[in-house]
């Protein structure tokens, strides 16, 4: 038997493996070939760089150890590590075992997989001082312990840190069921190596799993590896179009469902079929509807938790762009040459539409500028052109670019060196999409920190009144600004934090990215946010976004203020 490595039962395994590798190679080659030239160049430049080494390390920590999942929940982490690392070691040690017993010679794949069957006549005593049988049995038990948890999770996900898990597709069910059979069948077959039906069972389980795998969520097992390297080499998805690289992201999604619990549309508005796992699933299988693409606040809470680090928001924006049928040609021509700015100064201030609709913030900004003795150029006080972010979030990237071009020219024409904005929505698009070389873009919170540290602004310390701070999505997760507003607030009062804060902060519910979420759902979210802040015992809620301010005020009886208003109240 050792000589041929053949028995009838290996056929399902061989067929399954062949299909698996044929499909995977077909997919990867196709996606790589279709990468735009720019991305291909990035691959060549990155291949022999330190990025590749970092990628190898990331493959180890994420594909095998699953470090990020451990952070969500240790039991969930253990389950994934047991499957990934356990199975990986079974394969590696299996190969070593083959060499130890058969020497360095060609052994076909099935020879490794069904080693115990083909070598049942051999002495399986220790080789090189290692008792391989025991090692392999321990590894198999390790995987089986993960399997027990996986079965348990299907019925009691809450115990493993997940209130909800994903609904499965048919392909997922076939793959999952066969996967659940693989390891118990292996244990049985290896325990009774002379029983052929057991080997048939093991081989069929493997074969079915391998055939179903590339069409199911288990495609992530392989796809995460190329994704990690491509990402390390600097390839990203784009908001303005769907790209070939997107396929790697879509198929690296394991639909683990960790994105479902943080989603406030699920928690507070009862929407159960629009979360990132479902969006990715629908896009992957070409059945994406506008309903799913549009029902999202793009708050980024799921993206922070995604164990595969997928660009969930960008992928959704790409889809919105593909699905949006609005022609943008010339719609905004009237906005050219609009210059209603006033004042003169090296520092420009851009209010944005939402600040213009919140005149208290604008008034506070004016008083703060005066107190600091700043000469300000007011870009859009008497009206101006939109920053472009709302159009971008709706998928109309071409029209957004028109807005960006018009505004960028306006800023350059007036020779400013610093651009301050009190709107994080504008801030994000200025930083991410505008090319404002020579102009430093600051959020008003960062500008206040600077004024305070330069001694240009002195504030009266506040009383004992406690306040709490809301991290706007676009400012926190969007621009990574968490500390500046807190630093300013701490100079005037006592700050108390809500349960979910900083990069886990809740969305106000009225995100500009919303294309479909109904008003009643937005209010339900705002009320949940309001309750979270009321639970801190604070007397007022401070935020640093005019839109969040309006939105949260709908859900609470506590006063909601912008950072600028608080500062103005404390001007010495």
């Amino acid at each position, binding site marked *: 038997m050792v000589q041929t490595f053949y028995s009838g039962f290996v056929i399902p395994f061989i067929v399954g493996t062949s299909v698996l590798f044929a499909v995977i190679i077909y997919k990867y080659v196709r996606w790589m070939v279709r990468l735009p030239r720019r991305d291909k160049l990035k691959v060549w430049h990155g291949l022999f760089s330190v990025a590749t080494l970092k990628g190898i390390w990331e493959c180890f920590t994420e594909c095998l150890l699953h470090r990020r999942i451990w952070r969500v929940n240790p039991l969930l982490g253990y389950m994934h590590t047991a499957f990934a690392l356990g199975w990986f070691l079974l394969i590696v040690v299996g190969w070593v075992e083959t060499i130890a017993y058969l020497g360095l010679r060609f052994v076909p794949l099935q020879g490794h997989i069904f080693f115990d069957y083909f070598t049942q006549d051999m002495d399986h005593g220790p080789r090189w001082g290692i008792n391989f049988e025991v090692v392999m049995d321990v590894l198999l038990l390790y995987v089986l312990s993960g399997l027990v948890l996986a079965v348990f999770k299907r019925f009691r996900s809450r115990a493993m840190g997940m209130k909800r898990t994903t609904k499965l597709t048919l392909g997922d069910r076939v793959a999952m069921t066969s996967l659940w059979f693989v390891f118990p069948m292996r244990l049985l077959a290896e325990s009774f190596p002379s029983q052929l039906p057991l080997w048939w069972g093991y081989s069929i389980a493997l074969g079915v799993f391998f055939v179903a795998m590339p069409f199911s969520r288990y495609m992530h097992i392989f796809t995460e590896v190329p994704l990690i390297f491509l990402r390390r080499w600097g390839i990203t998805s784009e908001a303005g179009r769907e790209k070939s690289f997107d396929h790697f992201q879509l198929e690296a999604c394991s639909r683990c469902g960790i994105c479902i619990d943080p989603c406030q549309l699920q928690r507070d508005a009862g929407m159960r079929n629009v979360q990132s796992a479902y969006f990715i699933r629908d896009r992957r299988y070409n059945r994406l509807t506008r309903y799913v693409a549009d029902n999202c606040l793009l708050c980024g809470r799921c993206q922070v938790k995604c164990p595969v680090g997928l660009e969930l928001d960008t992928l959704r924006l790409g889809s919105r762009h593909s699905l949006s049928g609005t022609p943008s040609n010339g719609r905004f021509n009237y906005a050219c040459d609009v210059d209603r700015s006033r004042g003169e100064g090296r520092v420009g201030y851009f209010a944005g539409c939402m600040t*213009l*609709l*919140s*005149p*208290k913030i604008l*008034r506070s900004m004016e008083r703060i500028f005066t107190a600091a003795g700043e000469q300000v150029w007011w870009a859009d006080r*008497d009206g101006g052109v939109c920053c472009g972010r709302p159009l971008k979030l709706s998928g109309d990237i071409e029209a957004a670019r028109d807005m960006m071009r018009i505004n960028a020219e306006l800023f350059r024409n007036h020779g400013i060196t610093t651009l301050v904005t009190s709107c994080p929505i504008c801030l994000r698009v200025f930083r991410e999409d505008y090319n404002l070389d020579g102009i430093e873009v600051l959020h008003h919170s960062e500008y206040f920190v600077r004024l305070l540290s330069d001694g240009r602004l002195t504030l009266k310390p506040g009383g004992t009144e406690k306040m709490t701070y809301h991290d706007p999505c676009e400012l926190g997760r969007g621009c990574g600004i968490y500390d500046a507003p807190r630093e300013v607030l701490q100079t005037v009062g006592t700050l108390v934090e809500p349960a979910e804060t900083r990069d886990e902060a809740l969305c106000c519910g009225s995100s500009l990215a919303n294309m479909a979420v109904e*008003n*009643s759902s937005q*209010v339900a979210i705002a009320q949940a946010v309001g309750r979270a802040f009321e639970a801190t015992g604070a007397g007022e809620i401070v935020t640093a976004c005019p839109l969040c301010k*309006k939105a949260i*005020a*709908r859900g609470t009886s506590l006063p909601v203020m912008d950072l600028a208003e608080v500062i103005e109240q404390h001007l010495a």
Partner: protein
Amino acid sequence: MKKIIVVGGGPAGMQAALSLVAEGLKPVIVERSGALGGKLRDWHNLFPSMTPAHEVLEGMTKQMENAGVEVMLHTEVEGLTDGGVLLMEGKKLEGEAVIVASGFDIFDARLKEEYGYHIYDNVFTTVDVERMLNKGEVALHDGSAPHGIAFVHCVGSRDEKVNQKHCSKVCCITGVKQAMEMRQLFPDAEIYNFYMDIRMFGPGYEELYQSAQQDFGVNFIRGRVSEASPTIDGRLQIKAEDTLVGRPLKMTVDMLVLIVGMKASSSNEKYALPLSSSGFLTPRDLFSGAVSSDLPNVFYAGTATAPKTIGESICEGSMAAEKVSEYLKSRK
């Protein structure tokens, strides 16, 4: 004889008490403030007949005195209990039935920050205008007369953005009425009404609306004002869209009047009875059960259940009293 508790001493509550006395029952009015009359005390002339509000109020209070209705002022109801209501500091008031006539709250115009109420000096609400009319001092912040006045309809009505989905019903006609009063005070001023729909549902309302345009020279522009901002010379610039012409417009005025809507009373939650999505108490049905609640001994009257005119609220007061009487008879 056990008492019938009437929560709230506005027009609906006062009429309920008067009708209860007429039925031979003994009402007690529990009123949160220091006087009877509710918001009627703040109004100047009542639409559509321009009857002075104080005439209506005095007529009712005189009847109340003659009937000798018991009134508890400065007393707040905290909720319902078995056989009565719960008052402040855990006190109980026993009664055979309860009529909830606790009225409405005025929408807080500061929530529509874009209109600049309490930010710019010359932005007022219709409630402010009634007060100024009562004082006989209608003027801008600096005491001068306005040359341009704009009324904004539906501030806090039919506006999901501020959780006010409902139509407040009385604001359209209030805007028409106040525009006419302004014309009488300022014959040369430009007066505008910005509206999204004009709902002239009551007797004589449509005639008043016609007259405002034809005889009083009030301009009606169909379109919501999006924002107000100060001009350099201290006036107010408003932006809107004239949706009949299909053009955006900007206009500079001296005085902006926000026609504020009715908000469900925040006290409605205390009764633990069903509320509508806008927060008003939900009557058993909108026909013969319009003043009945889900509880056999609790009845409603006036704007606790929906925006209503003063006349309608008074009608419901009578109707609630009649239903109380029916209920008591049915128990015997």
